[in-house]
Protein backbone atom coordinates (compact mmCIF):
# COMPACT_ATOMS: atom_id res chain seq x y z
CA UNK A 1 0.00 0.00 0.00
CA UNK A 2 1.33 3.41 -0.90
CA UNK A 3 0.71 6.06 1.71
CA UNK A 4 -1.66 8.64 0.29
CA UNK A 5 -0.58 12.24 0.25
CA UNK A 6 -3.09 15.06 -0.10
CA UNK A 7 -2.02 18.16 -1.93
CA UNK A 8 -4.27 20.90 -0.54
CA UNK A 9 -6.57 22.38 -3.17
CA UNK A 10 -5.25 20.13 -5.94
CA UNK A 11 -6.88 16.90 -4.81
CA UNK A 12 -10.55 18.01 -5.10
CA UNK A 13 -9.76 19.67 -8.42
CA UNK A 14 -8.24 16.52 -9.90
CA UNK A 15 -11.02 14.32 -8.57
CA UNK A 16 -13.65 16.61 -10.06
CA UNK A 17 -11.78 16.76 -13.38
CA UNK A 18 -11.45 12.98 -13.54
CA UNK A 19 -15.13 12.47 -12.77
CA UNK A 20 -16.13 15.04 -15.37
CA UNK A 21 -14.01 13.43 -18.07
CA UNK A 22 -15.22 9.95 -17.19
CA UNK A 23 -18.81 11.16 -17.20
CA UNK A 24 -18.65 13.02 -20.49
CA UNK A 25 -16.47 10.58 -22.40
CA UNK A 26 -17.52 7.20 -21.04
CA UNK A 27 -20.60 7.01 -18.87
CA UNK A 28 -22.75 9.36 -20.96
CA UNK A 29 -21.97 7.81 -24.38
CA UNK A 30 -22.40 4.34 -22.94
CA UNK A 31 -25.76 5.39 -21.57
CA UNK A 32 -26.70 6.76 -24.98
CA UNK A 33 -25.91 3.40 -26.61
CA UNK A 34 -28.36 1.60 -24.36
CA UNK A 35 -30.88 4.46 -24.46
CA UNK A 36 -30.87 4.42 -28.28
CA UNK A 37 -31.00 0.65 -28.41
CA UNK A 38 -34.08 0.54 -26.20
CA UNK A 39 -35.61 3.79 -27.56
CA UNK A 40 -38.42 1.98 -29.39
CA UNK A 41 -39.03 -0.61 -26.69
CA UNK A 42 -37.71 -4.05 -25.88
CA UNK A 43 -39.39 -5.77 -28.85
CA UNK A 44 -37.84 -3.27 -31.25
CA UNK A 45 -34.51 -3.90 -29.52
CA UNK A 46 -34.70 -7.65 -29.99
CA UNK A 47 -36.08 -7.56 -33.52
CA UNK A 48 -32.87 -6.48 -35.35
CA UNK A 49 -30.82 -8.87 -33.24
CA UNK A 50 -32.85 -11.84 -34.39
CA UNK A 51 -32.36 -10.99 -38.08
CA UNK A 52 -30.35 -13.69 -39.91
CA UNK A 53 -27.59 -11.16 -40.71
CA UNK A 54 -27.27 -10.18 -37.06
CA UNK A 55 -27.28 -13.76 -35.84
CA UNK A 56 -24.67 -14.60 -38.43
CA UNK A 57 -22.53 -11.67 -37.30
CA UNK A 58 -22.75 -12.84 -33.70
CA UNK A 59 -21.90 -16.40 -34.67
CA UNK A 60 -18.99 -15.26 -36.84
CA UNK A 61 -17.64 -13.07 -34.02
CA UNK A 62 -17.77 -16.03 -31.65
CA UNK A 63 -16.11 -18.34 -34.19
CA UNK A 64 -13.29 -15.87 -34.88
CA UNK A 65 -12.71 -15.39 -31.15
CA UNK A 66 -12.97 -19.12 -30.47
CA UNK A 67 -10.15 -19.77 -32.94
CA UNK A 68 -7.89 -16.79 -32.38
CA UNK A 69 -8.01 -16.63 -28.58
CA UNK A 70 -6.79 -20.23 -27.97
CA UNK A 71 -4.14 -19.72 -30.65
CA UNK A 72 -2.90 -16.65 -28.84
CA UNK A 73 -3.09 -18.36 -25.46
CA UNK A 74 -0.80 -21.11 -26.74
CA UNK A 75 1.47 -18.61 -28.45
CA UNK A 76 1.50 -16.40 -25.35
CA UNK A 77 2.50 -19.22 -23.01
CA UNK A 78 5.17 -20.46 -25.41
CA UNK A 79 6.61 -16.99 -26.03
CA UNK A 80 6.56 -16.07 -22.34
CA UNK A 81 8.23 -19.37 -21.47
CA UNK A 82 10.96 -18.75 -24.03
CA UNK A 83 11.54 -15.16 -22.94
CA UNK A 84 11.38 -15.77 -19.20
CA UNK A 85 13.29 -19.05 -19.02
CA UNK A 86 15.98 -18.90 -21.66
CA UNK A 87 18.81 -16.66 -22.68
CA UNK A 88 19.27 -16.48 -26.42
CA UNK A 89 20.43 -14.07 -29.07
CA UNK A 90 17.75 -11.77 -30.36
CA UNK A 91 15.62 -12.08 -27.24
CA UNK A 92 14.97 -8.36 -26.99
CA UNK A 93 14.10 -8.36 -30.69
CA UNK A 94 11.51 -11.06 -30.04
CA UNK A 95 9.99 -9.04 -27.21
CA UNK A 96 9.85 -6.01 -29.49
CA UNK A 97 8.10 -8.02 -32.20
CA UNK A 98 5.57 -9.33 -29.69
CA UNK A 99 4.78 -5.72 -28.82
CA UNK A 100 4.60 -4.53 -32.40
CA UNK A 101 0.83 -5.03 -32.89
CA UNK A 102 0.28 -2.73 -29.89
CA UNK A 103 2.09 0.14 -31.54
CA UNK A 104 0.99 -0.54 -35.12
CA UNK A 105 -2.31 0.68 -36.56
CA UNK A 106 -4.76 -2.25 -36.84
CA UNK A 107 -5.36 -1.23 -40.46
CA UNK A 108 -1.79 -2.30 -41.21
CA UNK A 109 -2.40 -5.62 -39.43
CA UNK A 110 -5.26 -6.20 -41.85
CA UNK A 111 -3.52 -4.84 -44.89
CA UNK A 112 -0.51 -7.18 -44.64
CA UNK A 113 -2.81 -10.15 -45.19
CA UNK A 114 -4.37 -8.50 -48.22
CA UNK A 115 -0.88 -7.89 -49.59
CA UNK A 116 0.01 -11.53 -49.02
CA UNK A 117 -3.19 -13.36 -49.85
CA UNK A 118 -5.35 -10.85 -51.75
CA UNK A 119 -6.17 -11.28 -55.44
CA UNK A 120 -3.26 -9.00 -56.34
CA UNK A 121 -1.10 -10.26 -53.46
CA UNK A 122 2.00 -12.44 -53.50
CA UNK A 123 0.18 -15.71 -53.01
CA UNK A 124 -3.09 -14.50 -54.55
CA UNK A 125 -2.82 -16.25 -57.93
CA UNK A 126 -1.70 -19.52 -56.35
CA UNK A 127 -4.56 -19.43 -53.85
CA UNK A 128 -7.06 -18.73 -56.62
CA UNK A 129 -5.75 -21.64 -58.64
CA UNK A 130 -6.22 -23.96 -55.70
CA UNK A 131 -9.56 -22.40 -54.82
CA UNK A 132 -8.50 -21.32 -51.34
CA UNK A 133 -10.16 -18.19 -50.06
CA UNK A 134 -8.50 -16.22 -47.28
CA UNK A 135 -9.33 -12.60 -47.94
CA UNK A 136 -13.08 -11.89 -47.67
CA UNK A 137 -13.43 -15.16 -45.74
CA UNK A 138 -13.40 -16.39 -42.15
CA UNK A 139 -9.75 -17.47 -42.27
CA UNK A 140 -8.76 -13.90 -43.18
CA UNK A 141 -10.75 -12.56 -40.24
CA UNK A 142 -9.00 -15.02 -37.93
CA UNK A 143 -5.54 -14.09 -39.26
CA UNK A 144 -6.18 -10.38 -38.81
CA UNK A 145 -7.57 -10.91 -35.31
CA UNK A 146 -4.68 -13.14 -34.25
CA UNK A 147 -2.18 -10.54 -35.38
CA UNK A 148 -3.91 -7.68 -33.60
CA UNK A 149 -4.34 -9.58 -30.32
CA UNK A 150 -0.89 -11.22 -30.42
CA UNK A 151 0.66 -9.35 -27.46
CA UNK A 152 -2.14 -9.69 -24.91
CA UNK A 153 -1.38 -13.05 -23.32
CA UNK A 154 2.40 -12.90 -23.73
CA UNK A 155 2.66 -9.41 -22.25
CA UNK A 156 0.70 -10.53 -19.23
CA UNK A 157 2.80 -13.65 -18.63
CA UNK A 158 6.35 -12.47 -19.35
CA UNK A 159 6.81 -10.19 -16.31
CA UNK A 160 5.10 -12.69 -14.01
CA UNK A 161 7.22 -15.61 -15.16
CA UNK A 162 10.38 -13.52 -14.95
CA UNK A 163 9.39 -12.51 -11.47
CA UNK A 164 8.64 -16.06 -10.32
CA UNK A 165 11.90 -17.44 -11.65
CA UNK A 166 12.63 -21.03 -12.57
CA UNK A 167 13.38 -22.38 -9.11
CA UNK A 168 10.06 -24.17 -8.64
CA UNK A 169 10.46 -25.89 -11.98
CA UNK A 170 14.03 -26.85 -11.10
CA UNK A 171 12.78 -28.22 -7.79
CA UNK A 172 10.13 -30.30 -9.58
CA UNK A 173 12.79 -31.77 -11.88
CA UNK A 174 15.08 -32.72 -8.99
CA UNK A 175 12.10 -34.40 -7.33
CA UNK A 176 11.78 -36.68 -10.32
CA UNK A 177 9.11 -34.97 -12.41
CA UNK A 178 9.45 -34.98 -16.19
CA UNK A 179 9.11 -31.96 -18.46
CA UNK A 180 5.38 -32.31 -19.13
CA UNK A 181 4.52 -33.14 -15.52
CA UNK A 182 6.45 -30.07 -14.40
CA UNK A 183 4.62 -27.91 -16.92
CA UNK A 184 1.15 -29.17 -15.98
CA UNK A 185 1.63 -29.37 -12.24
CA UNK A 186 3.98 -26.45 -11.53
CA UNK A 187 4.29 -23.94 -14.37
CA UNK A 188 0.67 -23.76 -15.46
CA UNK A 189 -0.91 -23.53 -11.98
CA UNK A 190 1.50 -20.72 -11.12
CA UNK A 191 0.45 -18.63 -14.08
CA UNK A 192 -3.20 -19.66 -14.37
CA UNK A 193 -4.75 -16.42 -13.10
CA UNK A 194 -2.48 -14.24 -15.20
CA UNK A 195 -3.21 -16.49 -18.17
CA UNK A 196 -6.94 -16.14 -17.58
CA UNK A 197 -6.50 -12.39 -17.25
CA UNK A 198 -4.58 -12.24 -20.51
CA UNK A 199 -7.09 -14.46 -22.29
CA UNK A 200 -9.90 -12.23 -21.05
CA UNK A 201 -8.30 -9.07 -22.43
CA UNK A 202 -7.39 -10.92 -25.62
CA UNK A 203 -10.98 -12.10 -26.02
CA UNK A 204 -12.43 -8.64 -25.47
CA UNK A 205 -10.15 -7.25 -28.13
CA UNK A 206 -10.74 -10.18 -30.50
CA UNK A 207 -14.51 -9.70 -30.37
CA UNK A 208 -14.33 -5.92 -30.57
CA UNK A 209 -11.65 -5.58 -33.26
CA UNK A 210 -12.74 -3.38 -36.13
CA UNK A 211 -9.87 -1.91 -38.09
CA UNK A 212 -7.86 -4.93 -39.14
CA UNK A 213 -10.96 -7.04 -39.64
CA UNK A 214 -12.69 -4.46 -41.81
CA UNK A 215 -9.74 -4.48 -44.25
CA UNK A 216 -9.87 -8.24 -44.86
CA UNK A 217 -13.62 -8.70 -44.49
CA UNK A 218 -15.02 -6.76 -47.43
CA UNK A 219 -18.13 -6.40 -45.26
CA UNK A 220 -20.24 -8.89 -47.17
CA UNK A 221 -23.49 -8.78 -45.22
CA UNK A 222 -24.43 -12.11 -43.70
CA UNK A 223 -21.12 -13.61 -44.80
CA UNK A 224 -18.04 -11.82 -43.52
CA UNK A 225 -19.39 -9.21 -41.13
CA UNK A 226 -18.45 -9.65 -37.49
CA UNK A 227 -20.44 -7.80 -34.85
CA UNK A 228 -18.43 -4.56 -34.97
CA UNK A 229 -18.65 -4.52 -38.78
CA UNK A 230 -22.35 -5.30 -38.57
CA UNK A 231 -22.81 -2.21 -36.40
CA UNK A 232 -21.15 -0.07 -39.06
CA UNK A 233 -23.14 -1.61 -41.91
CA UNK A 234 -26.43 -1.01 -40.09
CA UNK A 235 -25.43 2.48 -39.11
CA UNK A 236 -24.51 3.40 -42.67
CA UNK A 237 -27.93 2.10 -43.71
CA UNK A 238 -29.61 4.43 -41.20
CA UNK A 239 -30.88 1.46 -39.18
CA UNK A 240 -30.12 3.20 -35.92
CA UNK A 241 -32.00 0.97 -33.50
CA UNK A 242 -30.40 -2.11 -35.02
CA UNK A 243 -26.97 -0.51 -34.93
CA UNK A 244 -27.31 0.50 -31.32
CA UNK A 245 -28.78 -2.86 -30.37
CA UNK A 246 -25.75 -4.62 -31.82
CA UNK A 247 -23.49 -2.03 -30.21
CA UNK A 248 -25.14 -2.66 -26.86
CA UNK A 249 -24.07 -6.31 -27.07
CA UNK A 250 -20.48 -5.24 -27.65
CA UNK A 251 -20.75 -2.72 -24.81
CA UNK A 252 -22.15 -5.38 -22.48
CA UNK A 253 -19.30 -7.66 -23.42
CA UNK A 254 -16.92 -4.90 -22.43
CA UNK A 255 -18.69 -4.40 -19.12
CA UNK A 256 -18.65 -8.12 -18.31
CA UNK A 257 -14.93 -8.25 -19.16
CA UNK A 258 -14.37 -5.31 -16.86
CA UNK A 259 -16.22 -6.96 -13.97
CA UNK A 260 -14.30 -10.25 -14.30
CA UNK A 261 -11.04 -8.34 -14.72
CA UNK A 262 -11.70 -6.31 -11.58
CA UNK A 263 -12.61 -9.48 -9.69
CA UNK A 264 -9.36 -11.17 -10.80
CA UNK A 265 -7.32 -8.15 -9.80
CA UNK A 266 -9.02 -8.03 -6.41
CA UNK A 267 -8.92 -11.73 -5.66
CA UNK A 268 -5.63 -12.80 -7.23
CA UNK A 269 -3.59 -9.63 -7.46
CA UNK A 270 -0.57 -11.43 -6.04
CA UNK A 271 -0.57 -13.92 -8.87
CA UNK A 272 -0.92 -11.39 -11.65
CA UNK A 273 2.20 -9.72 -12.85
CA UNK A 274 3.07 -7.10 -10.28
CA UNK A 275 3.40 -3.56 -11.53
CA UNK A 276 1.70 -4.20 -14.85
CA UNK A 277 -1.96 -3.43 -14.81
CA UNK A 278 -3.90 -2.46 -17.90
Amino acid at each position, binding site marked *: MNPSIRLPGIAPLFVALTLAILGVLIVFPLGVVFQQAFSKGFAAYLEPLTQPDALHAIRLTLIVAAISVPLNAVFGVAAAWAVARFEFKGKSLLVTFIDLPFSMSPVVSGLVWVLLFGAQGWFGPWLQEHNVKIIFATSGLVLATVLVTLPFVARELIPLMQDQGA*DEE*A*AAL*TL*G*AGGFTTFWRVTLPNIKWALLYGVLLCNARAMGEFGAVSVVSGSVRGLTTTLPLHVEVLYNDYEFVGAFAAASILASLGLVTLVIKTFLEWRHSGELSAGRRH
Partner: protein
Amino acid sequence: MNFRQADDTSASVNALEIKGISKAYGRFPALKNVSLQAKDKEFLALLGPSGSGKTTLLRVLAGLEQPDAGEVRFAGEDFLALPVRRRKVGMVFQHYALFRHMTVAQNIAFGLTVRKRSEKPAKSEIADRVAHLLQLVQLEGLDKRFPSQLSGGQRQRVALARALAIEPKMLLLDEPFGALDAQVRRELRRWLRELHDRAGVTTVFVTHDQEEALDLADRVAILKDGELIQLGTPNQVYEHPATPFVFDFLGQACRMPGVVEKGRLLIADWESEAPAGAADGAVDVFFRPDEVAFAPADGAGLSALVRGVTQRGPDVRIDCVIEGQTVELQAHGPTLPPGVTTGLSVRIKPLRPQVYATA
Protein backbone atom coordinates in the same frame (compact mmCIF):
# COMPACT_ATOMS: atom_id res chain seq x y z
CA MET B 1 39.14 -59.15 -11.05
CA ASN B 2 41.13 -58.03 -8.05
CA PHE B 3 41.64 -54.65 -9.58
CA ARG B 4 37.93 -54.22 -10.15
CA GLN B 5 37.21 -55.04 -6.54
CA ALA B 6 39.69 -52.47 -5.32
CA ASP B 7 37.93 -49.96 -7.53
CA ASP B 8 34.60 -50.78 -5.90
CA THR B 9 35.90 -50.22 -2.39
CA SER B 10 37.30 -46.84 -3.27
CA ALA B 11 33.92 -45.91 -4.72
CA SER B 12 32.17 -46.74 -1.48
CA VAL B 13 34.62 -44.60 0.50
CA ASN B 14 34.32 -41.63 -1.82
CA ALA B 15 30.61 -41.46 -2.54
CA LEU B 16 30.95 -38.36 -4.65
CA GLU B 17 33.84 -37.74 -7.00
CA ILE B 18 34.16 -34.53 -8.94
CA LYS B 19 36.99 -34.41 -11.46
CA GLY B 20 38.15 -31.40 -13.46
CA ILE B 21 34.80 -29.64 -13.71
CA SER B 22 34.87 -26.49 -15.82
CA LYS B 23 31.96 -24.31 -16.77
CA ALA B 24 31.81 -20.91 -18.45
CA TYR B 25 28.90 -18.58 -19.06
CA GLY B 26 29.80 -16.91 -22.30
CA ARG B 27 33.28 -15.55 -21.65
CA PHE B 28 32.91 -15.61 -17.88
CA PRO B 29 34.46 -18.75 -16.36
CA ALA B 30 32.28 -19.86 -13.41
CA LEU B 31 34.26 -23.03 -12.60
CA LYS B 32 37.86 -23.77 -13.48
CA ASN B 33 39.01 -27.37 -13.31
CA VAL B 34 37.49 -28.14 -9.91
CA SER B 35 38.14 -31.56 -8.42
CA LEU B 36 36.99 -32.77 -5.04
CA GLN B 37 35.51 -35.79 -3.31
CA ALA B 38 32.97 -36.39 -0.59
CA LYS B 39 32.85 -39.53 1.49
CA ASP B 40 29.73 -41.54 2.04
CA LYS B 41 27.42 -39.81 4.58
CA GLU B 42 29.79 -36.88 4.75
CA PHE B 43 28.65 -33.31 5.32
CA LEU B 44 30.63 -31.19 2.86
CA ALA B 45 30.43 -27.41 2.78
CA LEU B 46 31.22 -25.38 -0.34
CA LEU B 47 32.33 -22.05 1.02
CA GLY B 48 33.18 -18.94 -0.92
CA PRO B 49 32.26 -15.34 -1.60
CA SER B 50 29.58 -14.55 -4.18
CA GLY B 51 30.78 -15.29 -7.69
CA SER B 52 33.10 -18.04 -6.49
CA GLY B 53 31.19 -20.70 -8.42
CA LYS B 54 29.90 -22.63 -5.43
CA THR B 55 26.25 -22.51 -6.48
CA THR B 56 27.16 -23.37 -10.06
CA LEU B 57 28.98 -26.46 -8.78
CA LEU B 58 25.94 -27.46 -6.74
CA ARG B 59 23.70 -27.04 -9.78
CA VAL B 60 26.08 -29.19 -11.80
CA LEU B 61 25.70 -31.90 -9.17
CA ALA B 62 21.91 -31.57 -9.33
CA GLY B 63 21.94 -31.70 -13.12
CA LEU B 64 20.50 -28.21 -13.51
CA GLU B 65 23.69 -27.08 -15.27
CA GLN B 66 25.85 -28.99 -17.72
CA PRO B 67 29.60 -28.51 -17.23
CA ASP B 68 31.80 -27.81 -20.27
CA ALA B 69 34.36 -30.35 -19.13
CA GLY B 70 34.94 -32.79 -16.32
CA GLU B 71 33.39 -35.77 -14.66
CA VAL B 72 30.99 -36.35 -11.78
CA ARG B 73 30.61 -39.80 -10.30
CA PHE B 74 28.33 -40.83 -7.51
CA ALA B 75 28.83 -44.29 -6.02
CA GLY B 76 30.82 -45.09 -9.14
CA GLU B 77 27.99 -44.11 -11.48
CA ASP B 78 28.49 -41.51 -14.22
CA PHE B 79 26.25 -38.76 -12.87
CA LEU B 80 26.53 -36.41 -15.83
CA ALA B 81 24.95 -39.02 -18.09
CA LEU B 82 21.80 -38.99 -15.96
CA PRO B 83 19.08 -36.35 -16.45
CA VAL B 84 18.06 -34.34 -13.39
CA ARG B 85 15.01 -36.43 -12.61
CA ARG B 86 16.95 -39.69 -12.45
CA ARG B 87 19.72 -38.49 -10.17
CA LYS B 88 17.60 -38.73 -7.04
CA VAL B 89 19.19 -35.76 -5.35
CA GLY B 90 17.24 -33.77 -2.83
CA MET B 91 17.82 -30.13 -3.56
CA VAL B 92 16.94 -27.30 -1.19
CA PHE B 93 16.96 -23.84 -2.73
CA GLN B 94 17.93 -20.58 -1.12
CA HIS B 95 14.46 -19.13 -1.59
CA TYR B 96 12.81 -22.45 -0.76
CA ALA B 97 11.14 -22.84 -4.20
CA LEU B 98 8.08 -24.38 -2.59
CA PHE B 99 5.16 -24.94 -4.96
CA ARG B 100 3.08 -21.94 -3.97
CA HIS B 101 -0.27 -23.34 -5.07
CA MET B 102 0.15 -26.59 -3.13
CA THR B 103 -0.33 -27.23 0.57
CA VAL B 104 2.56 -28.27 2.78
CA ALA B 105 1.47 -31.91 2.53
CA GLN B 106 1.14 -31.73 -1.27
CA ASN B 107 4.57 -30.13 -1.50
CA ILE B 108 6.17 -32.89 0.51
CA ALA B 109 4.31 -35.61 -1.40
CA PHE B 110 5.17 -34.16 -4.83
CA GLY B 111 8.23 -36.31 -5.45
CA LEU B 112 6.21 -39.44 -4.70
CA THR B 113 3.09 -38.53 -6.67
CA VAL B 114 5.00 -37.80 -9.89
CA ARG B 115 6.48 -41.28 -10.01
CA LYS B 116 5.56 -43.71 -12.74
CA ARG B 117 2.41 -45.66 -11.91
CA SER B 118 4.38 -48.85 -11.31
CA GLU B 119 6.67 -47.17 -8.78
CA LYS B 120 4.15 -44.88 -7.15
CA PRO B 121 3.37 -45.75 -3.52
CA ALA B 122 -0.28 -46.21 -2.51
CA LYS B 123 -2.15 -43.13 -1.30
CA SER B 124 -2.15 -44.32 2.31
CA GLU B 125 1.57 -44.97 2.10
CA ILE B 126 2.22 -41.47 0.79
CA ALA B 127 0.10 -40.01 3.59
CA ASP B 128 2.10 -42.00 6.15
CA ARG B 129 5.38 -40.84 4.68
CA VAL B 130 4.25 -37.21 4.69
CA ALA B 131 3.12 -37.48 8.32
CA HIS B 132 6.45 -39.01 9.27
CA LEU B 133 8.42 -36.27 7.50
CA LEU B 134 6.28 -33.53 9.05
CA GLN B 135 7.18 -34.98 12.40
CA LEU B 136 10.84 -35.15 11.46
CA VAL B 137 10.91 -31.46 10.55
CA GLN B 138 8.71 -30.60 13.53
CA LEU B 139 5.82 -29.17 11.55
CA GLU B 140 3.00 -31.46 12.67
CA GLY B 141 -0.41 -29.90 12.18
CA LEU B 142 0.69 -27.50 9.44
CA ASP B 143 0.05 -29.96 6.60
CA LYS B 144 -2.93 -28.02 5.21
CA ARG B 145 -1.22 -24.63 5.19
CA PHE B 146 0.06 -22.98 2.05
CA PRO B 147 3.68 -21.81 1.82
CA SER B 148 2.59 -18.17 2.00
CA GLN B 149 1.13 -18.87 5.45
CA LEU B 150 4.45 -20.06 6.88
CA SER B 151 7.44 -18.26 8.35
CA GLY B 152 10.78 -18.41 6.57
CA GLY B 153 12.16 -21.04 8.92
CA GLN B 154 9.06 -23.19 8.51
CA ARG B 155 9.23 -22.90 4.72
CA GLN B 156 12.83 -24.02 4.74
CA ARG B 157 11.91 -27.07 6.81
CA VAL B 158 9.11 -27.93 4.38
CA ALA B 159 11.62 -27.65 1.54
CA LEU B 160 13.91 -30.04 3.40
CA ALA B 161 11.08 -32.51 4.08
CA ARG B 162 10.12 -32.37 0.41
CA ALA B 163 13.70 -33.15 -0.60
CA LEU B 164 13.95 -36.00 1.91
CA ALA B 165 10.65 -37.53 0.74
CA ILE B 166 12.26 -39.03 -2.34
CA GLU B 167 14.87 -40.75 -0.15
CA PRO B 168 17.66 -38.96 -1.97
CA LYS B 169 21.08 -40.44 -2.55
CA MET B 170 22.53 -37.04 -1.86
CA LEU B 171 21.23 -33.85 -0.29
CA LEU B 172 22.16 -30.55 -1.94
CA LEU B 173 21.57 -27.36 0.01
CA ASP B 174 21.97 -23.96 -1.65
CA GLU B 175 22.45 -21.35 1.07
CA PRO B 176 19.42 -22.78 2.84
CA PHE B 177 19.57 -20.27 5.67
CA GLY B 178 20.58 -17.28 3.58
CA ALA B 179 17.20 -15.58 3.79
CA LEU B 180 16.63 -16.14 7.52
CA ASP B 181 17.53 -13.95 10.45
CA ALA B 182 20.50 -14.78 12.66
CA GLN B 183 18.59 -16.33 15.56
CA VAL B 184 16.52 -18.74 13.41
CA ARG B 185 19.62 -19.52 11.39
CA ARG B 186 21.61 -20.73 14.41
CA GLU B 187 18.73 -22.89 15.65
CA LEU B 188 18.19 -24.47 12.23
CA ARG B 189 21.91 -25.09 11.85
CA ARG B 190 22.06 -27.41 14.86
CA TRP B 191 18.90 -29.09 13.84
CA LEU B 192 20.10 -29.62 10.26
CA ARG B 193 23.27 -31.31 11.48
CA GLU B 194 21.25 -33.66 13.69
CA LEU B 195 18.94 -34.39 10.81
CA HIS B 196 21.89 -35.19 8.56
CA ASP B 197 23.34 -37.58 11.10
CA ARG B 198 19.99 -39.34 11.51
CA ALA B 199 19.15 -39.50 7.80
CA GLY B 200 22.65 -40.75 6.96
CA VAL B 201 22.82 -39.16 3.55
CA THR B 202 25.78 -37.49 1.84
CA THR B 203 25.19 -33.75 2.01
CA VAL B 204 26.71 -30.90 0.01
CA PHE B 205 25.99 -27.52 1.47
CA VAL B 206 26.68 -24.15 -0.17
CA THR B 207 27.26 -21.10 1.98
CA HIS B 208 29.12 -17.82 2.07
CA ASP B 209 29.02 -17.75 5.87
CA GLN B 210 32.31 -19.11 7.19
CA GLU B 211 30.95 -19.54 10.71
CA GLU B 212 28.14 -21.72 9.37
CA ALA B 213 30.53 -23.83 7.31
CA LEU B 214 33.03 -24.34 10.12
CA ASP B 215 30.28 -25.15 12.60
CA LEU B 216 28.31 -27.60 10.45
CA ALA B 217 30.54 -29.41 8.04
CA ASP B 218 32.79 -32.46 8.27
CA ARG B 219 34.93 -30.90 5.59
CA VAL B 220 35.00 -27.51 3.97
CA ALA B 221 35.88 -26.76 0.36
CA ILE B 222 36.85 -23.13 -0.13
CA LEU B 223 36.30 -21.69 -3.59
CA LYS B 224 37.35 -18.42 -5.13
CA ASP B 225 36.80 -17.19 -8.68
CA GLY B 226 35.73 -20.66 -9.80
CA GLU B 227 38.76 -22.42 -8.37
CA LEU B 228 39.08 -24.76 -5.42
CA ILE B 229 41.55 -23.13 -3.04
CA GLN B 230 41.55 -25.53 -0.11
CA LEU B 231 39.73 -28.64 1.06
CA GLY B 232 39.94 -29.88 4.63
CA THR B 233 38.28 -30.30 7.99
CA PRO B 234 37.11 -27.09 9.69
CA ASN B 235 40.13 -27.23 12.02
CA GLN B 236 42.59 -27.83 9.20
CA VAL B 237 41.39 -24.92 7.13
CA TYR B 238 41.01 -22.58 10.08
CA GLU B 239 44.39 -23.32 11.63
CA HIS B 240 46.34 -23.80 8.42
CA PRO B 241 44.79 -21.62 5.75
CA ALA B 242 46.48 -22.40 2.46
CA THR B 243 46.48 -18.82 1.18
CA PRO B 244 46.08 -15.29 2.54
CA PHE B 245 42.63 -15.30 0.94
CA VAL B 246 41.53 -18.30 3.00
CA PHE B 247 43.00 -16.78 6.15
CA ASP B 248 41.15 -13.55 5.51
CA PHE B 249 37.91 -15.24 4.53
CA LEU B 250 37.66 -17.53 7.55
CA GLY B 251 37.94 -14.81 10.14
CA GLN B 252 39.39 -11.46 11.02
CA ALA B 253 43.03 -10.99 10.10
CA CYS B 254 45.96 -8.78 11.10
CA ARG B 255 48.71 -8.48 8.57
CA MET B 256 52.38 -7.48 9.02
CA PRO B 257 55.41 -7.71 6.75
CA GLY B 258 58.18 -10.03 7.94
CA VAL B 259 61.22 -12.07 6.94
CA VAL B 260 61.92 -15.79 7.36
CA GLU B 261 65.55 -16.81 7.67
CA LYS B 262 66.89 -20.21 8.68
CA GLY B 263 63.79 -21.21 10.58
CA ARG B 264 63.46 -17.89 12.38
CA LEU B 265 60.72 -15.33 11.75
CA LEU B 266 61.55 -11.67 12.05
CA ILE B 267 58.75 -9.14 12.40
CA ALA B 268 60.02 -5.61 12.99
CA ASP B 269 62.34 -5.88 16.02
CA TRP B 270 60.96 -9.19 17.26
CA GLU B 271 62.42 -12.56 16.37
CA SER B 272 60.66 -15.87 16.98
CA GLU B 273 60.55 -19.38 15.64
CA ALA B 274 59.09 -19.54 12.14
CA PRO B 275 56.07 -21.78 11.52
CA ALA B 276 57.09 -25.27 10.38
CA GLY B 277 57.97 -25.53 6.71
CA ALA B 278 58.16 -21.80 6.02
CA ALA B 279 60.61 -21.04 3.21
CA ASP B 280 63.24 -18.33 3.57
CA GLY B 281 62.50 -14.87 2.20
CA ALA B 282 60.17 -11.91 2.59
CA VAL B 283 56.74 -12.92 3.87
CA ASP B 284 53.34 -11.55 4.80
CA VAL B 285 52.59 -12.54 8.39
CA PHE B 286 48.93 -13.13 9.21
CA PHE B 287 47.48 -13.62 12.67
CA ARG B 288 44.04 -13.50 14.27
CA PRO B 289 43.37 -10.30 16.26
CA ASP B 290 42.32 -12.36 19.29
CA GLU B 291 45.22 -14.85 19.15
CA VAL B 292 47.84 -12.65 20.79
CA ALA B 293 49.55 -12.52 24.15
CA PHE B 294 50.30 -9.21 25.83
CA ALA B 295 53.56 -8.54 27.68
CA PRO B 296 54.96 -5.48 29.48
CA ALA B 297 56.95 -2.98 27.40
CA ASP B 298 60.26 -4.40 28.58
CA GLY B 299 59.27 -8.00 27.73
CA ALA B 300 59.48 -9.89 24.41
CA GLY B 301 57.23 -9.30 21.43
CA LEU B 302 56.22 -6.62 18.97
CA SER B 303 56.36 -3.18 20.44
CA ALA B 304 52.90 -1.58 20.29
CA LEU B 305 51.35 1.68 21.44
CA VAL B 306 47.78 1.33 22.71
CA ARG B 307 45.63 4.07 21.16
CA GLY B 308 42.26 3.07 22.53
CA VAL B 309 40.40 0.34 24.39
CA THR B 310 36.71 -0.07 23.63
CA GLN B 311 34.30 -2.51 25.23
CA ARG B 312 31.95 -3.99 22.62
CA GLY B 313 29.56 -6.44 24.25
CA PRO B 314 31.55 -9.48 25.29
CA ASP B 315 34.63 -8.35 23.34
CA VAL B 316 37.14 -5.63 23.89
CA ARG B 317 38.64 -3.86 20.91
CA ILE B 318 42.19 -2.68 21.32
CA ASP B 319 43.42 -0.19 18.74
CA CYS B 320 47.16 -0.02 18.67
CA VAL B 321 50.00 1.12 16.46
CA ILE B 322 52.72 -1.39 15.59
CA GLU B 323 55.62 -0.16 13.48
CA GLY B 324 53.57 2.84 12.35
CA GLN B 325 50.72 0.58 11.25
CA THR B 326 47.29 0.70 12.89
CA VAL B 327 46.24 -2.75 14.09
CA GLU B 328 42.94 -3.68 15.67
CA LEU B 329 43.25 -6.44 18.26
CA GLN B 330 40.57 -8.26 20.17
CA ALA B 331 40.29 -9.72 23.64
CA HIS B 332 37.56 -10.91 25.92
CA GLY B 333 36.75 -8.56 28.81
CA PRO B 334 37.82 -10.77 31.73
CA THR B 335 41.00 -11.95 29.98
CA LEU B 336 42.34 -8.48 29.22
CA PRO B 337 45.69 -7.97 30.99
CA PRO B 338 45.63 -4.99 33.44
CA GLY B 339 48.52 -3.19 31.68
CA VAL B 340 46.61 -2.67 28.47
CA THR B 341 45.17 0.84 28.71
CA THR B 342 45.08 3.80 26.40
CA GLY B 343 48.40 5.59 25.94
CA LEU B 344 50.61 2.77 27.25
CA SER B 345 53.28 0.87 25.34
CA VAL B 346 53.07 -2.91 25.45
CA ARG B 347 54.56 -5.91 23.70
CA ILE B 348 52.45 -8.21 21.60
CA LYS B 349 53.16 -11.80 20.64
CA PRO B 350 51.03 -13.35 17.90
CA LEU B 351 50.38 -16.90 19.17
CA ARG B 352 49.81 -18.67 15.87
CA PRO B 353 51.23 -16.56 13.02
CA GLN B 354 50.88 -17.84 9.47
CA VAL B 355 53.39 -16.76 6.86
CA TYR B 356 52.90 -16.51 3.12
CA ALA B 357 55.64 -15.64 0.67
CA THR B 358 55.18 -12.03 -0.44
CA ALA B 359 53.64 -11.95 -3.86
